């Protein structure tokens, strides 16, 4: 992400032609304008899969396209365009990124033997771009980026007949593309239903518009983009070690008969956030360390180094903080409701991290003690959204995630979030209550095999019987239990079991139905409306009735539920 290009002089060639170098800057401007708006594009994404990554995918594709051509000094537009197309293809991500790369290929194909871009050539390029893109799918869906590309091409062809001004042609192209975009909901019902325009189409409009703005001599500021991405930055910049941020070291190691696994194991010992990939001849290494000398000396003993990058992450962080005007380091893994004195669990990227929903700050603390890396606050009456769960997942720096919804109404949102977290493998253990979640966490092993650990946790969740004591909000008869509004009720594993007017008697009867003297440990998590002394007193009277069982009293802090009981 760089704005440098815009400080360069405007295109040297006149407005009726454009050479390779000028075109390069034009494409950069398109990329930057998309960069500035990609978050918006993401939000529009509902077709074909509403995973909210269209803008990011298109941006990645454009970035790679520009990167590919950055060092090319050629004035020959055909060569520049071909290289852009190649970069776009190699960097293409997702549906829209692939379509974008096909557009580039068609465009480059039309330009291949030409030295500079004329109005006729621009029109022909856009035409061929659209044709190529349409050929890439059996059933082209109208109301998508394809429609926008096709109409843009039509506008270019029409305009090229009555003007030779490139800026004017591009202006009309952008106008028509915007118009086509605005009509996408009429063509694709799912867009209308969601009340949005097509996301891929809007990405393409931004790219074209960025080019136009550049031709009109406007400079695209990239400051806003930095702010928009600040949230992501906050996690990547979180201190990963008490010694501070250390250095980000990257290099390429070239040699003969290199063993990637040996190098990876060695580098892994030296720092964190390790990424080692490559072949026998060349290995790309990325690692965060406190002393950049260690991995470099190690690697140089194996072969030749190139493309060495060492960045001071402490400085980056301080710059970041200065810009944001805050002295507080960003919180790692968003420990909502977590207490400062519990150190966050330390995880490597290939460990298993746990994300869990907690309905009270006390419960959050319990989960954190048991090793949960990410917490989402929510419960019976305030179910967290899929987005909140997804955020928590993405804040945990591991590739493998186990997710505990701890409420039957949250399981669905959790599964949805798991599907959306495409960069991580997420397993949802369908825990239906806080005690089930706590019980499931007991066999958790961050270093284990994901499937094995998930299976063990799935088994463990059923080792516990859950009791919940709350106040009925309406009169009802369920499972043969008559309840009047305002009465105290007891639920056993989510089923209404007891109703009464007296809290301690309901508590006693609920417990009776829960474990019938066969369990070993009974835990009471008292809610935010109960004083600790009160909870202890209640527990003492209960323990007199259950001499063989051990009792524990823990502050749960949950709303609405006076007590959550767990018997195991």
């Amino acid at each position, binding site marked *: 992400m760089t704005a440098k290009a815009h400080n360069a002089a405007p295109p040297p060639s006149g407005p009726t032609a454009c050479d390779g170098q000028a075109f390069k800057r034009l494409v950069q401007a398109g990329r930057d304008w998309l960069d500035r708006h990609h978050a918006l594009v993401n939000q529009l994404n509902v077709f074909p899969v509403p995973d909210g990554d269209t803008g990011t995918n298109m941006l990645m594709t454009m970035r790679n396209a520009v990167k590919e051509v950055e060092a090319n000094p050629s004035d020959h537009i055909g060569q520049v365009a071909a290289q852009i197309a190649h970069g776009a293809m190699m960097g293409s991500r997702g549906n829209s990124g692939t379509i974008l790369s096909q557009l580039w290929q068609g465009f480059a194909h039309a330009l291949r033997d030409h030295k500079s871009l004329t109005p006729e050539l621009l029109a022909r390029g856009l035409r061929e771009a659209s044709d190529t893109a349409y050929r890439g799918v*059996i059933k082209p869906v109208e109301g998508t980026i394809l429609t926008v590309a096709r109409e843009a091409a039509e506008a270019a062809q029409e305009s090229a007949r009555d003007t030779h001004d490139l800026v004017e042609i591009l202006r009309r192209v952008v106008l028509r593309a915007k118009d086509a975009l605005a009509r996408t909901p009429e063509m694709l019902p799912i867009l209308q239903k969601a009340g949005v325009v097509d996301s891929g189409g809007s990405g393409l409009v931004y790219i074209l518009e960025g080019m136009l703005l550049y031709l009109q001599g406007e400079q695209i500021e990239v400051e806003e983009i930095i702010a928009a991405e600040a949230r992501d930055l906050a996690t990547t910049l979180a201190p990963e070690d008490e010694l501070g941020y250390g250095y980000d070291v990257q290099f390429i190691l070239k040699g003969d008969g290199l063993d990637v696994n040996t190098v990876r194991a060695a580098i892994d010992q030296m720092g964190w956030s390790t990424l080692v990939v490559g072949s026998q001849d060349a290995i790309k290494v990325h690692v965060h360390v406190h002393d950049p000398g260690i991995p470099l000396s190690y690697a140089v003993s194996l072969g030749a180094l190139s493309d060495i990058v060492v960045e001071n992450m402490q400085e980056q962080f301080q710059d970041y903080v200065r810009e944001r005007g805050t002295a507080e380091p960003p919180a790692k893994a968003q420990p909502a409701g977590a207490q400062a004195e519990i150190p966050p669990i330390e995880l490597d990227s290939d460990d298993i991290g746990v994300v869990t929903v907690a309905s009270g700050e006390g419960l959050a603390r319990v989960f954190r003690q048991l090793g949960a890396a990410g917490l989402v606050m929510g419960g019976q009456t305030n179910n967290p959204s899929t987005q909140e769960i997804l955020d928590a997942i993405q804040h945990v720096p591991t590739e493998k995630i186990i997710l505990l919804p701890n409420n039957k109404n949250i399981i669905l949102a959790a599964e949805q979030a798991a599907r959306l977290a495409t960069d991580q493998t997420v397993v949802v253990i369908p825990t239906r209550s806080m005690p089930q979640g706590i019980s499931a966490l007991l066999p958790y092993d961050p270093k284990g095999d994901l499937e094995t650990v998930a299976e063990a946790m799935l088994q463990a969740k059923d080792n516990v019987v859950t009791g919940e004591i709350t106040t009925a909000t309406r009169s009802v008869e369920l499972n043969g239990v008559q309840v009047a509004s305002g009465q105290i009720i007891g639920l056993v594993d989510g089923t209404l079991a007891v109703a009464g007017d007296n809290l301690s008697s309901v508590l006693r009867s609920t417990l009776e139905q829960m474990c019938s003297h066969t369990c070993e440990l009974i835990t009471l998590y008292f809610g935010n409306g109960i004083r600790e002394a009160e909870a202890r007193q209640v527990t003492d009277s209960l323990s007199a009735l259950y001499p063989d069982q051990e009792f524990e009293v823990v502050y749960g802090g949950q709303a609405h539920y006076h007590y959550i009981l767990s018997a195991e």
Partner: protein
Amino acid sequence: MTTNETPRGSIEISPSVIATLASHAALQTYGVVGMASPNLASDIAASLTRDPNRGIAVRLDGAHIVIDVYVIITHGTRIASVANSLINSVRYAVEQATGLSVGQVNVRVQGLRVSKTE
């Protein structure tokens, strides 16, 4: 046959329904220009077909649905990107329509098609 028991009755969804849904999603995925029969490479030519389940194999692995998709992809696209989009689209389409959870979508690229002008 995938059966979903509800208190008011059971819902059975035939694998061919799942295959049709998957096929539809696959053919709408950008970069996919045809479905291929798993075995007959010679069949590639007749990739546009009336058989809605062509190139799709649906099986049950325990409680999970596993869908194998045999496709022809347009030359000049990045196959990995197209395949990833395909997996997402098929999974989404099947899960949306049936409410069942899809365990795996396996993409088998059986061929590349080079378009005439290139």
